[in-house]
């Protein structure tokens, strides 16, 4: 009976770890590869270590195996998080089929602080309105156009409050302002309108 259980656990663990190897070669970008390796390999290792516990059935081997499981289960998510974070900041390209990048515009390029723009007073007085930061990618169709040409106010019902270009901040930009790639735009509007406007800057 223990033979069968041990065998099953080794089989499951080995197959999962093989799938992790398959995932790291076959997945299209770093972040998808990480989701294959971190989760699957850790689970596979857990199964193998459980097999070790059942097979040896003594205190020393069990404590070693349990310590390894605990340590790997604690350290693997931390390691994956910091390497993913470093990769995102060093602009490792996302897969071209990526639908949404929720971190985009939510971190400070210089300090690497993650943040959302918060205006507590505004929220109190205008509960429905939101401000959001968008960054303009070089491939966006509106890069190089003026604000008047893009006409966000009429087309999307939102207002550009300010543009941050490298170190300088242009507040209340007028319609003649040209948008450059890597500009950050602070835009105010209803959440559902802001969701739509994000596509323009990608």
């Amino acid at each position: 009976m223990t033979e069968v259980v041990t065998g099953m656990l080794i089989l499951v663990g080995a197959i999962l770890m093989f799938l992790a190897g398959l995932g790291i070669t076959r997945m299209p970008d770093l972040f998808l590869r990480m989701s294959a390796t971190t989760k699957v390999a850790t689970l596979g290792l857990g199964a193998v270590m459980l097999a070790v516990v059942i097979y040896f059935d003594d205190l020393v081997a069990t404590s070693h195996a349990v310590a390894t499981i605990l340590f790997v289960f604690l350290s693997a998510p931390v390691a994956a998080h910091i390497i993913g974070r470093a990769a995102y900041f060093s602009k490792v390209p996302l897969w071209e089929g990526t639908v949404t990048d929720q971190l985009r515009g939510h971190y400070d390029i210089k300090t690497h602080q993650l943040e959302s723009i918060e205006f507590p007073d505004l929220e109190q007085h205008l509960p429905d309105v939101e401000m959001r930061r968008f960054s303009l990618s070089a491939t966006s169709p509106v890069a190089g156009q003026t604000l008047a040409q893009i006409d966000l106010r009429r087309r999307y019902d939102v207002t550009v409050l300010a543009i941050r270009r490298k170190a300088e901040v242009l507040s209340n930009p007028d319609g003649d302002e040209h948008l450059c790639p890597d500009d950050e735009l602070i835009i105010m509007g209803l959440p559902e309108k802001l969701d739509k406007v994000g596509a323009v800057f990608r």
Partner: protein
Amino acid sequence: MTLVQGLVVFVAFPLLTIAVILAFVRLVRGPSLPDRVVALDLIATLMIGIIAVYAIATDEPVLLDLAIVLALISFLGTVAFAYYIERRV
């Protein structure tokens, strides 16, 4: 050779070895530095698995010491690499 040891030698070792080779392909191909770090991390995890099944195949629980040490070192290595990549930007 028991059933379990046969399973380790004829199923687990080949599967894990192929996985290490696949991870090594990613280590060589990259393309970015984080890709290589993730590949190294996976190779370390697979090595821990190989050590564990090898301990079963040879009936040597002493080898499990190695698994813990390798887990510690690979975590430190990944943290150091991530710190370096983030500072480099």
